[in-house]
C-alpha cells in the first residue's frame, strides 16, 4: 500500500537528520567539559551546527505544516475525541500483552488510518507542541536580547533554557520510542523500508 508520498518522505528524512544533529550538539553544549576529548562535539562546533540545523529545521517544519494543510496527509493527525482513552488503552494493551499472545493488531494500517491512536497522540504532541516550543525557546536563546529579563523574579533566560532542554529531552525520548516501535512491524525492518520506499507492507500482505 502506497502510504508515504515523496514530500512526506523527504520531510521525514530531513527531520530525522536534523533532529539527530540537534540532539548530539545540544547534549554536547549542555555536558561540555574543559577537556575537549570528553565531548561528543567541541562547544564551538556544537554551537555552529546546532544553529545551522535549527535554522534548517524551522524551514522543514514550515514545509511539513504547509504540506499537511495543503494535502490529505493532515487528516492523519486529527485526534478523535470519541473513544480516545479506550483506544489508547487498546493499543497499549496490544504492545504490552496482545502482540505476545498473537492477537490481531487492534488498529491495522490503512489509507484511512495511517497511525494507531498511540502514534497519533505522540506525533501530535511531538510535532505540534514540543517542536514549536523547542523552536520558540531556541530562538530566545539564539537572540537573548529578545527574552524578558525577569519573570516572577526568575531570570527569563533560565526559564527559556529549561523549557528548551525539557522539550529537547522529550523529543529525544520520543525519538527512542519512535525508533523502537518502528521495529514492531511484520519484520524488524519492514516499517523502516516503508518510509524509504513509500510502500507499507501490513501483516496481511
Amino acid at each position, binding site marked *: 500500500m502506497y502510504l508515504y508520498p515523496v514530500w512526506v518522505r523527504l520531510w521525514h528524512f530531513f527531520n530525522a537528520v536534523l533532529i539527530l544533529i540537534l540532539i548530539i550538539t545540544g547534549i554536547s*553544549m*549542555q*555536558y*561540555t*567539559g*574543559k577537556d*575537549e576529548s570528553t*565531548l561528543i562535539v*567541541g*562547544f*564551538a562546533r556544537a*554551537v*555552529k551546527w546546532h*544553529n545551522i540545523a535549527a535554522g534548517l529545521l524551522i524551514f522543514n517544519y514550515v514545509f511539513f505544516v504547509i504540506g499537511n494543510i495543503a494535502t490529505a496527509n493532515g487528516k492523519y493527525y486529527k485526534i478523535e475525541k470519541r473513544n480516545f482513552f479506550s483506544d489508547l488503552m487498546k493499543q497499549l494493551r496490544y*504492545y*504490552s500483552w496482545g502482540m*505476545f499472545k498473537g492477537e490481531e493488531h487492534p488498529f491495522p494500517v490503512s489509507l484511512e488510518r495511517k497511525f494507531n491512536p498511540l502514534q497519533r497522540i505522540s506525533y501530535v504532541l511531538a510535532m505540534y507542541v514540543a517542536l514549536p516550543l523547542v523552536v520558540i525557546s531556541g530562538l530566545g*536563546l539564539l537572540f*537573548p*536580547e529578545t527574552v524578558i529579563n525577569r519573570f516572577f523574579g526568575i*531570570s527569563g*533566560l*533560565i526559564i527559556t*533554557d*529549561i523549557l528548551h*532542554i*525539557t522539550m529537547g*529531552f522529550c523529543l529525544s*525520548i520520543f525519538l*527512542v*520510542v519512535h525508533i*523502537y516501535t518502528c521495529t514492531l512491524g511484520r519484520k524488524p525492518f519492514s516499517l523502516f523500508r516503508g518510509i524509504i520506499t513509500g510502500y507499507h507492507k501490513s501483516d496481511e500482505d
Partner: protein
Amino acid sequence: MRSMRSWLLIYVLLISVRPAANGFNGRQATNQDTTTFVSPFYGENERCFKCHGQSKYEYTNENLGRQVKALMFSERVIDRDKFYDSNHKSFSCTDCHSVDYVTFPHPGELRMEQQYNCLDCHGGDDKFAKFGFEAIEEDYQASVHFKLEEGGFSCWKCHNPHSYKISARNSNNLKETVLYDNNICLNCHANFSHFQLLTDRDEINILAKHDWLPNQSSHFKSVRCIECHSEVNNNVLVSHLIHPKEKAVKKCNECHSQNSLLMSSLYKFESKKQRKDGFFNGIILNESYVIGANRNEYLNIFSLAIFGVLIIIIGTHIFFRLIRKQNK
C-alpha cells in the same frame, strides 16, 4: 607663648592630615557610599581646581598687566565630580603633588616631579593586604603592558588616580562593573588617539577582531575583556597579567563548562556564596546565564532516571519478543 602656638599648629596639622592617612579604613569606606561626601580639603583643593577643573583658565599676567585667558592642556584637566567620587576623594592635591604647586606660575622644575605609583602608598602595608598590591605588581610586570612602560605606560593609564573607583569589590551590579572595567580597556584599545601614544601598532577594530565570538554583544555586556585576555591569579581579585592576543582564551568551554573559568575570575568575589537550587555555578544565574556552566543537578538526575526506565522497558519488551520468537 610661642611654644604653645607651635603645639597648637602641630595639633591642627595632625587633625587635617588624618583623613587622608585613613583613606581606606572602614569609616571612610562607609563614607564612600554616601552622596554627601565633603572633602576636608575641598577649599584647599579648589585653589588647584580653579584652573585645572576645566579646559580654560584665567590668571593675572603681571608682565602684561592684565587678565589672560588660556586653554588647559587636556591631560591636566581634572574632573571635580569624578575626583570627589573616586577612591582618592579624601586626599588633598598636595598629598601626592608637591606643595610648591601652590605658587603660580608653577616653578619649572616641578615638571620633573617624580610621580608616585600604586605601590608607593599601597605596598607593604597590612591595611591594604587584602587587595594584594604586591601580587598585582608581579602580574603587571609579567604582562604585555609592562613592556610599554618605557614608552610611558604606568598604573595610571588604566587606573586614573583622579577618577578611579574600585568596582568589582564594592558593586552590587555586576553589569555596571563589567561596563566600567571594559571601558578602562576600551579607553585605549578602541580609541586610536590614546592607543597610538603608547604603541606603533595599527588601529584595532575590536568588533571585527571578535567576529568569531557568537552573541558578541551579549558577551561584551556580560563579561570583562580580562576574562579572556588575562591569567587568573588566585591571590588577587582582578587579574593584571594581561596576555598577548595570541594567548587569549578562545575555547568556549573554558567558560561554558561545569568548572567554568568565570567562577575564578568575574564571579570570584561572589563564588563563596552558594545557591541551593541545584544549579551548577548557580551564583552566575544571579546576573546571567551561561550554557554548559549552569546545568541543573536535579534535572540531570531526573532525566537520567526517565531515560533509564525507558531503556529497562524497551529491554524487557525485546526480551519477551525474543522468547516469543523462540517459542514460535
